[in-house]
């Protein structure tokens, strides 16, 4: 298993190098002079020339790539063009907010998705199951940003229970977490349902029932535990979805995380800040996938490693 883990670690190195290259290259194709574009039309020629030198735009792409990688290793992602702050500071300010939001959204999706999936499986084709299916279908079809606005209309404007946006208290977290978690509820609940259904047909479940165990024990001790394995994989995939959804949710609720930072930097044409933010976001996604893969290897001893 150690062998597998090392291989999996080594395999993510080219991916990381590639991600950095893609981030650099996409901004390479920006038409015109990026330095002039970033400073806007009122910039002096001198300022543009200075920025070109600081960004190293006069050097070839490969040289800048290596320099950027060297900076990345030292935790130096350059300075934002607008605020003149180190990008890494901006990221350090925003990242915890996104982490917090994603964590609670994930909790929401687990706390609702797992029980509803179990009930759907145990009471197959019941009213609850059909209703849950309908709601998940709708949940997967609704755009995240629209869910957010809808919740604001109902729970902030019509019934002022929660704030429209901003951050500070736990109340500020409620609507954004639900907004972001809703599509994942649908997926997790469906996955738990089919997984539990499959396990309920297994021999050892029949044995457990034959022993005269209470149905509750059969389901929670025997079935659910084993049913969680495929669910774990889906959860890993859901984290990527959550991170993308966070970009939208943060912009709906004015949540000061990475998504807001990214969109702000796009509108400010602050490519240095954008590169840094996207890079940190993508790299943390690579890391999360790595952790999910490794934990999957730990949890399921049946998987063989070549």
């Amino acid at each position, binding site marked *: 298993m150690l062998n597998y883990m090392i291989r999996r670690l080594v395999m993510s190195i080219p991916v990381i190098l590639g991600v950095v290259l893609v*981030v650099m290259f*996409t901004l390479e194709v920006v038409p015109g002079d990026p330095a002039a574009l970033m400073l806007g039309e009122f910039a002096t020629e001198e300022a543009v020339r200075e920025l070109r030198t600081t960004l190293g735009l006069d050097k070839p792409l490969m040289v800048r790539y290596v320099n950027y990688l060297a900076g990345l290793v030292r935790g130096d992602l350059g300075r934002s063009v607008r605020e003149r702050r180190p990008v890494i500071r901006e990221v350090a300010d925003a990242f915890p907010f996104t982490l917090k939001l994603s964590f609670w959204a994930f909790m929401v999706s687990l706390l609702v998705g797992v029980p509803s999936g179990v009930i759907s499986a145990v009471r197959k084709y019941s009213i609850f199951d059909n209703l849950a299916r309908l709601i998940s279908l709708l949940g997967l079809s609704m*755009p995240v940003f629209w869910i957010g606005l809808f919740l604001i209309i109902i729970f902030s404007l019509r019934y002022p229970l929660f704030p429209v946006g901003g951050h500070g208290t736990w109340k500020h977290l409620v609507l954004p977490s639900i907004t972001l978690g809703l599509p994942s509820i649908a997926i997790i609940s469906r996955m738990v349902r089919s997984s539990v259904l499959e396990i309920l047909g297994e021999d050892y479940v029949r044995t457990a029932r034959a022993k005269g165990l209470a149905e509750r024990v059969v389901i929670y001790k025997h079935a659910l535990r084993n049913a969680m394995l495929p669910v774990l994989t889906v959860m890993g995939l859901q984290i990527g979805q959550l991170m993308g959804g966070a970009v939208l949710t943060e912009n709906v609720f004015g949540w000061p995380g990475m998504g807001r930072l990214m969109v702000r930097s796009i509108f400010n044409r602050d490519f240095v800040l954008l590169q840094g933010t996207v890079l940190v976001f993508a790299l943390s996604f690579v890391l999360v996938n790595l952790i999910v893969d490794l934990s999957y290897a730990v949890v399921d001893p049946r998987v063989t490693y070549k």
Partner: protein
Amino acid sequence: MRLSSKTRGLGASESVHRTGIQQLVQRFARNQLAVVGFILVLAISLAAVFAPVLAPHDPLDQNLPLKRSLPGQHFVLGADEFGRDILSRLLFGGRSALLVGVLSFAVAASIGLVLGMVSGVAAGIVDDVIMRLNDIVLAFPYLLLALLIVTALGPSVLSTTIAVGLWGAPSFVRLVRAEVIALRNREFIEAARAVGARSSAIMVRHLLPNFAGSLITFGTLFMARAILVEAALSFLGLGVQPPTPSWGLMVSSGRDFLRVAPHISTLPGIAIMLAVLGFNLLGDGLRDALDPKLRN
């Protein structure tokens, strides 16, 4: 959809085909949700195509005295913040959504077909390189790559299409590659190779027809996601640019009036939801009809 037996020299298969397709239609029609999906997709496509005929007003016509009027007051679905007819804008907005959806599917599927087939047929180092490239693109969480591309190319319908297409391409590459690997050692491929068919001919004539079904199913489900991504980019102001009607843009433009005129934001959201739901149901239905074993 011509499926597996469309190999040369099996002339008698034509009748077999017809019953095959009939069975397919029958299986599909028995699935109520799939039929609902089909009707939704058909209705939305027709509405988008015939938008100029169906729309009661010019979607760009501003009527400021009637701005933010509620549904039923002056217009069937009310007016937006510039007094433009929301119903007409919804109909034309469907054009943006479907246009980006279909074109980005074309981009993603073409990349997927070429790279997936090459990867599956060539194997070895070519396969490794293509798969690593795939991993790199997949390493970007949903929306992020699209944000980068749109920033680089400048916001427009074209860059949205490219962004959504490139974002979707890796999953098509994986799909096609998996299908090719599953097929490449089958007898009929060996037979084709034995009679001296060129690789390109084998790919187009023998491999492609055999996974056209899964490609169409996957493409239908991709349309649902493409519509969501287009809406998301437009919502952020990075996709379709005003005054062109786009559902995501319409949701965003109503944000400042949630209290006085919530319909400006909510109605286009419902349009997005119906379109996405339609493609999702249709895709699920096609998958079940093509591969009955998968049904639970």
